[in-house]
């Protein structure tokens, strides 16, 4: 790996340093390892997590849960989003369902989810409930913002419905899809982890966090948080990179 920094990367680095600084100041203020352990100590804990035998398994399981939730929500969300965007009747039908899914707190359905599903699947389910409405809303709002003249043109030339969706709608709403996907993934990790905290599957960052918390190991809680944030950051980067690959046509 070649390491070379651009100006923007220096700034991102500065941003991380800034956060560490705020953290340090806060930890000095609280003077307690239980409220907010110092960054140094936590970073050591974080590094020591990497050495843990189950580390890869734990992180891998959470990531695969996240991906599963994301892919399912993505496919469902883009599909229904396009439908709701194109057809006002589908919209009228789906919107109440979306609002319901979106605003139902996890506490209300956790018991159902626990009973229905395998503990490992609960976080995926919770993740989906969080991500799906997002992607769907973003896509359908995207569709509504498409330049109508292009649609008229394509309809006029009798381009098939399927091709209009694939070659007009999808590229046009790419920015909305990306924005939705990036937001959804961001908050999705959180939902997945909360799901793990509640369902306690064998492996999972949430499970580890919950354990650390019951044992009052605040540093480990934060260390796992850092790992979760890193994962989230990596995926954000990947999505943005994919966006730049997709959207080469901007001037």
């Amino acid at each position: 790996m070649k390491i070379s920094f651009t100006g923007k990367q220096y700034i991102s680095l500065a941003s991380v340093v800034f956060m560490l600084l705020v953290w340090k100041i806060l930890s000095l203020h609280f003077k307690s390892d239980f409220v907010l352990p110092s960054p140094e100590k936590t970073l050591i804990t974080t590094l020591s997590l990497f050495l843990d035998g189950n580390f890869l398994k734990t992180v891998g399981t959470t990531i695969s849960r996240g991906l599963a939730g994301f892919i399912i929500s993505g496919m469902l969300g883009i599909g229904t989003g396009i439908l709701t965007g194109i057809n006002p009747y589908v919209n009228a039908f789906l919107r109440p369902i979306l609002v319901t899914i979106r605003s139902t707190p996890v506490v209300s359905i956790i018991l159902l989810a626990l009973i229905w599903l395998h503990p490992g699947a609960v976080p995926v389910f919770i993740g989906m409930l969080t991500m799906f409405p997002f992607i769907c809303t973003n896509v359908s709002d995207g569709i509504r913002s498409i330049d109508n003249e292009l649609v008229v043109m394509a309809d006029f030339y009798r381009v098939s419905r399927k091709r209009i969706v694939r070659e007009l709608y999808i590229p046009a709403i790419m920015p909305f899809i990306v924005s939705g996907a990036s937001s959804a993934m961001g908050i999705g990790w959180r939902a997945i982890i909360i799901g793990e905290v509640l369902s306690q599957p064998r492996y999972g960052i949430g499970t580890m966090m919950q354990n650390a918390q019951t044992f009052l190991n605040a540093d480990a809680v934060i260390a796992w948080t850092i790992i979760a944030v890193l994962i989230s950051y990596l995926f954000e980067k990947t999505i943005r990179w994919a966006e730049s690959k997709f959207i080469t046509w901007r001037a």
Partner: protein
Amino acid sequence: KRSATETGSSKYILATLKGPSAMGMIKMIDSLNNDTGHSVEVKILSEPLQVRKMMLDGSADFAILPTTMAAIMYNKGLKYKLIGVPVWGTLYMVGNNSAINRWEDLKGKRIFVMARGMTPDVMFRYLLTKNGLNPDKDVDLDYSFPTHIDLANAVAAGQAPLAIISEPLASLVMKKNKDIRRIFDLEEEWGKFEDIAVAETAFLGKESVIQKDRETVKRIVSAYALSTEWVNKHPDSAAALIVKYGILPDAEVASRAIPGSHLRFVNAYDAKKEVEDYLYVFYNLNPDITGGKMPDENFIYR
């Protein structure tokens, strides 16, 4: 993962909580673990919610829950009966204030209690009243930290100088923060007025199982009782096992928490009065805590 009765498989499922109940059971857990031929499998869960889930879908044949919650489950029509009471009071008032020794000393103090209207709150208010203090006027009850973990963290961090927390968190906190000491053992204080012990935790069995297979119940009860006895007698060996099964992070805390947890397995029909009196206190103050009514006598297995 259906229960033994439904699948016909040979193993019964016992759902226990990561806490004093599992600590008392640790010897039994260990021997079950070392000998695969046994007919019982213990699942150690971290949240009462997860135990409730296993009772609701019937996958738990035996279960541990706080007694009040067990009463709720029973009153709502779930077919589980109280077999025994394995834990007798784990609540403590802890703090870093060495000037407090008597209840009167609490006057004007701010005391952190975890959740308004829940068991520890009701119990503490009851004791305050019994000791001549008005919970709403003479002391300042602070509910800023609504879960036991949040509150324990706050105590360890010195953010809650006087608080009501339970074992084994109390020991854990004292290990992490040397300034903190026990001030009152609520079980002891309770006994001064009620002449009974705090029947805090319930060991439950599924009706269909315990009626059909009294033999197993007997075996489990005696194993649990023996395990508890052994734990009380050998806190250091027990502590090692407690750490081994991930119930507490270190042996020192575990061995300190064992005496503090009042572990003692009593058969339910021997503890009938204690259970009823205990529940009645809560029922009186907030009927919701016992599920709207007092459980009838079928609650107790004999």
